[in-house]
């Protein structure tokens, strides 16, 4: 992930205007924008792996990858086109910089667990609605029991899960042996501190609350 910074955070709105057509997922996308920026701008190192499990509404993801020079800016306008590498759900085979193909909910976290078993630091982004899928909890349980410290999950919690998580989603992770940190999902400094709060002895979850 040898990113070459070509554009900054303030350029993201302009990049997003190039990505049109998937407006029904605008909120899903925009709720991840600041978390993605903080990850690519401050948190992820060259040997780290980022797994975007929340593949719905990837325009923010593509915009951040373009800002960091991983996707050519000129590809953005082709979003959703037949010959474009950038679809409504990311495809790692097509899109440069995309580390897993996602879109169907509940797949990223188990893959992230497998990658982290090798010792590589892996950060996986999921949505709170996505956590309804049972496959996530297979991963959360097992990663906690084996103390998979190389793994960090960030939950973008925009309260879209119909039945939500009484008492806070972080409690479910803590019960399984994870450390947790909460942050305002729009506050870059708070997000960075939340990622840094991992102890290195257990998997870590950052719950980034982003409300409309």
């Amino acid at each position, binding site marked *: 992930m040898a990113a070459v910074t070509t554009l900054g955070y303030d350029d993201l709105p302009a990049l997003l205007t190039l990505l049109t057509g998937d407006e029904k997922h605008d909120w899903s996308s925009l709720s991840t924008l600041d978390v993605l920026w903080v990850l690519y701008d401050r948190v992820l190192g060259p040997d780290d792996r980022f797994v975007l499990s929340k593949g719905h509404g990837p325009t923010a993801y593509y915009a951040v990858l373009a800002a960091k020079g991983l996707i050519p800016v000129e590809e953005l306008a082709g979003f959703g086109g037949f010959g474009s590498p950038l679809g409504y759900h990311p495809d790692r085979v097509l899109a440069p910089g995309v*580390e897993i193909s996602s879109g169907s909910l509940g797949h990223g976290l188990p893959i992230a667990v497998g990658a982290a078993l*090798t010792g590589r630091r892996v950060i996986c982004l999921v949505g709170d609605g996505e956590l309804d899928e049972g496959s996530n909890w297979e991963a959360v349980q097992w990663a906690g029991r084996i103390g998979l410290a190389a793994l960090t999950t960030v939950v973008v919690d925009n309260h879209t899960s119909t039945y939500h998580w009484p008492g806070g989603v972080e409690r479910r992770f803590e019960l399984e042996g994870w450390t947790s940190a909460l942050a305002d999902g729009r506050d870059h400094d708070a997000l960075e501190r939340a990622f840094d709060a991992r102890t290195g002895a257990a998997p870590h979850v950052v719950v980034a609350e982003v409300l409309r």
Partner: protein
Amino acid sequence: MTTMRERFYRLAADALEDERVAMVFAEIGVAEMPRHPRLFNVGIREQLMIGVAAGLALEGMRPVVHSYTPFLVERPYEQIKLDLGHQDLGAVLVSTGASYDASLSGRTHQAPEDVAALAALPGWTIEIPGHADELERSLRRALAGDGRVYIRLTQESNAVPVEGDSLTVVRRGTEGAPFVLAVGPTLDQVLAATAGLDTTVAYLTTVRPFDAAGLRAAVRGTDVVLVEPYLAGTSAAEVSSALRDRPHRLLALGVPNAEFRHYGTPAEHRRAHGLDAAGIRASIEAFADRNLVQTRLRSLTTPRL
């Protein structure tokens, strides 16, 4: 005789000497293996099992995933499709408990549709060994590669292994005699069924990719009988495609697509499905007889000039 399953655990333990290899199990089989830092037991979590294998493959490892057939192929089917196939990542899936091996256990532990389900996904190599030696050959080849490979273990076994990985003629009939293709552990039953019948018998263990060229070269008549130890007709379209420009008839034998609500022994199931020697012979004779009748009918109805 060493069972395929016993042979697999021994080979799997040895394979861990290669630092690229990791094993991902979901309880089943763990007790048969020595403890090892790259033997990951995820507990009874089969979706995770496939996802973890994909993550390991993403990091350049060669994961071997093992469980009982329904829990390996059916429960995490979408993970197999997306985490491995769509990600374009490789893994070796090794099932145990084929078709009616778990005859006493009922439908929950039976998945004769395993091969058809995986064959519906692109890019899988599917191996149906009929002997523990053939399993060893398949597994060693799979470990040396980086693709997606499914290896189906079974309690059934032929008495002796067959050399060669492509379609192999094991007994040649007269020119144009019915052609019987036995897959994996059906070979001994097929050889017994066709004893004294003028048939050509061939053998195949790698059913995907299907050896279409081998079939075209070996088939010299019009009648083809396909005998598969899993869902009947699983490879029928492959046979038809291979012979698409030749007039031919196909009889596809295998486990019927039905809720089969019986317990009992594997031998009883085999017999009930018509996959024992007597059942296979009866099916072949009926197939050949109908051919004879139709030939006579054609001769009666063809106008004479």
